[in-house]
């Protein structure tokens, strides 16, 4: 090394270089890292959920859907609303295993193509999306068009204290109605899809260890 004595590994010039550039890097990191953390923070903070009462058990039937407006995000007015289509579980057509959270089938109105709101057309017994022509059958399974998986669902339960049906967090299903933690529209969950579109860190987790 030029300018160094025999056996020296560092001289003044190199030491000053390292100190100056190092302190510059520390100063840059001191404002970059907090700003980055601030921007990325919401990705890692889990959103809490609350059970919302939607009516008495008698309000729902097995043959048609009742439209219920939910508040998905608190405090932002109309932009925080979403719609659930709710009916009573019918063992004759609902083949997925029954547990305490699906006595009422609550389908999310969010289309699984790109997230437009679907509407239930009673005459056709279908859910139809206005944006790109996605069609779902009575159970919310894909019947046609671009959607990549069945309509998302909400956990439902009977609150024994009040006697009312309550609606909880949203979950996603694949074409066999296995439950997954909520995914965004457009993300298939069959086969390799569940690995290509992993669970996120900010969605509210289901009740009692459900996804």
């Amino acid at each position, binding site marked *: 090394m030029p300018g160094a004595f025999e056996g020296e590994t560092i001289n003044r010039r190199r030491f000053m270089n390292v100190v100056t550039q190092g302190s510059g890097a520390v100063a840059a990191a001191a404002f970059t890292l907090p700003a980055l953390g601030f921007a990325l923070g919401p990705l890692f903070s889990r959103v809490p959920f609350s059970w919302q009462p939607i009516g008495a058990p008698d309000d729902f039937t097995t043959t048609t859907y009742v439209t219920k407006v939910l508040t*998905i*995000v608190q405090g932002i007015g109309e*932009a925080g609303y979403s719609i659930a289509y709710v009916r009573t579980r019918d063992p004759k057509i609902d083949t997925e295993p029954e547990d305490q959270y699906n006595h009422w089938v609550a389908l999310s109105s969010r289309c699984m193509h*790109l997230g*437009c709101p679907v509407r239930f057309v009673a005459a056709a017994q279908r859910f139809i999306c206005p944006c790109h022509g996605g069609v779902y059958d009575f159970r919310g399974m894909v019947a046609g068009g671009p959607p990549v998986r069945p309509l998302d669902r909400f956990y439902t339960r009977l609150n024994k204290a009040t006697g009312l049906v309550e609606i909880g967090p949203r979950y996603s299903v694949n074409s066999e109605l296995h439950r997954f933690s909520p995914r*965004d529209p457009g*993300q298939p969950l069959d086969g390799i899809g569940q690995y290509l579109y992993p669970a996120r860190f900010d*969605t509210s987790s289901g009740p009692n260890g459900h996804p």
Partner: protein
Amino acid sequence: MPKLPAPPLPKALKPLPKRPGEEGEKMTPLETAAEGGIHVVDWLDERTSLSGGVRWLLFRKVPKGINWFYTLGSATMFAFLNQAVTGVFLAMFYQPNVNGGAYESIRYITDDAFLGQLVRAMHKWGASVMIILIFLHMARVFFFGAYKYPRELTWIIGVVLLILTLAMGFTGYLLPFDQRSYWATIVGVNINGTGPLIGPYLSDFLRAGPEFGATTLSRFYAIHMMLIPGLIAALIGAHLYLITKLGISAPPWLKAEEEPELREAEI
């Protein structure tokens, strides 16, 4: 006291030599004004040496055969400047508030504010004009082969500028916060989410959470009016520097002038 040599000036700015017999005559007001202007330019140039840079930027050689297609880049830049200026004035009225404040402030700009409708329309239509111009400019560069050596980096920066401009369109579309804005953004964010592995986290980043939430609009607003405009301005500077440094390419139909002695020397 030693006198500094006079800085180089464009010919038009140099004072005319006095005619014989004019010596000692009083200057007309026009001449005084011109003299004052020259003094100001001199004062600035003595301290900054800017005149050299200005001449390097503006008085450069251009090839034969350049035509109106070569103005598309400048046109895109002026569309950006229009967006920047009108955007600043729209920001004086706009509120990124999801509880109806955003929609109401846009309604106020459009219906009540003096010239608000004009400024908003300039921003809204200017956005489409800028997208059209940037694609026309890109097509001109592509079909004229102007992206080839040594201008590859200019092209790459231009592509980044195109992407940033599209990102401006995407983030700006949400700001009026009407039904069309809201649902188009839902769809756009979900398209982002279909990218494998990082898609779900990218759409969480855009929304600041798993659902369209309280800070999504302000996040889009901050990206739209602070993050991307700064990047675009900086990259336009780099783009212009490279254009000036490397010169403008000749149109492809212009043959290089043959110099027989050079050709023979090569053989």
